[in-house]
């Protein structure tokens, strides 16, 4: 292998989040020296994924077809649309087995100071999706961070103005959580958002 091919591999590995020059070098040596089969598999999988994966036209999640399996499933309730930040959040919602509606994956969150606004998040796509005439309720399941809240507020304003019913996941003390072991921020907010019994 010519030195430039090695350098190119090390440099390419640096596109991974949190990988600096040192870790990239370690990964490259590991792949080439200790795990050539793994390296080949990684290269093929990467090529394959880039080839076949695209964003589902309806939910924006990664899919191998124009419309993903979940969005095409007639068993799911097309009147509910749950908006999440990332595919991992969708997977978490699915694990609850408590939701039978459809999803929209933003692939990010609003973050004004990082220059991520409605345009970067392609909120126009979400507006079009939610306005398909079937969706009756949009459930906002973005994170309970400032960015997630800002995202939820923004979407609520945009969709509310278009006559859609918008709801937000509620927040509070975790199930099975004891107050003594819950962080004070969570308890304080649960107190602000207390409900009448």
């Amino acid at each position: 292998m010519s030195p430039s091919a090695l350098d190119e591999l090390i440099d390419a590995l640096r596109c991974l989040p949190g990988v600096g020059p040192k870790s990239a070098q370690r990964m490259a040596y590991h792949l080439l020296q200790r795990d050539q089969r793994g390296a080949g598999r990684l290269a093929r999988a990467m090529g394959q994924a880039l080839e076949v994966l695209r964003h589902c036209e309806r939910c924006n999640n990664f899919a191998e077809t124009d419309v993903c399996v979940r969005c095409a499933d007639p068993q799911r309730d097309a009147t509910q649309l749950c908006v999440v930040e990332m595919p991992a959040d969708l997977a978490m919602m699915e694990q609850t087995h408590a939701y039978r509606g459809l999803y929209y994956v933003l692939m990010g969150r609003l973050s004004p100071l990082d220059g991520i606004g409605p345009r970067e998040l392609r909120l126009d796509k979400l507006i079009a999706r939610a306005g398909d005439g079937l969706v009756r309720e949009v459930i906002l399941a973005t994170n309970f961070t400032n960015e997630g809240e800002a995202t939820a507020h923004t979407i609520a304003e945009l969709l509310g103005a278009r006559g859609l019913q918008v709801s937000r996941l509620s927040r509070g003390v975790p199930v099975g959580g004891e107050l003594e072991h819950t962080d004070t921020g969570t308890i304080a907010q649960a107190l602000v958002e207390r409900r009448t019994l």
Partner: protein
Amino acid sequence: MSPKQRIEQQPSFVLHTYPWRETSLIAEIFSRDHGRVALVAKGARRPQSPLRGVLMAFQPLLVDWSGGGEVKTLVRAEWQGGQPLLGGRALLCGYYLNELLVRLSAREDAHPVLFAAYADALREFARGDALAPVLRRFELALLNELGYGAGLDVEADSGEAVRPAQDYLYIIERGPLPLATHAAADAEQPVISGRSLLAMAAGDFSAAETLAQSKTLLRAIINHYLGGQPLQSRRVLKELQEL
């Protein structure tokens, strides 16, 4: 490089955080006695890190840090509480305040008066106060504290007191000039009534005219000091209105 120091229990707010290495964060904070400081929060992005929920913008914190370089090391951050999380449009306005502080204040310049004005603004946002007067009061405090404040109640050149019934052309870095004797207004040199100037100087934003005119004036002054680099938070608000 300043000598190595250890700061304890410093009242602070997080202005912005960004990822650092694999599991850490850099937090830009605004502290009461040391101004804007950059801290590396080691391991703060690990799922179990107790810092995850604490290093949130708009919440009063007590922070310990050490180190003498440009970026210090966060030792401890404690949530002070007592303030509900910001929501809705107030949250977007909060980002605007943070961006102003990041863009216009220098690192490690202490501004305790501005810190108090910032804490007041967040408290008023959290309480649900009308947003515009809170924004205007903060913008004014920011300009005054950073040394950009030009007189509001004294005429430029003549040094005479501003008269309520007179209209003024506001010349940035000089102050208000009576309108009759000067050229037409533009975005760089807005027109403002003497009444509004005096109300602004007194921190009174109750009149609709004061609110509208002070918004134009303060925006022109802030844009001037931003040097033509637009604010992201303002762009986001504008894009929202266009959708």
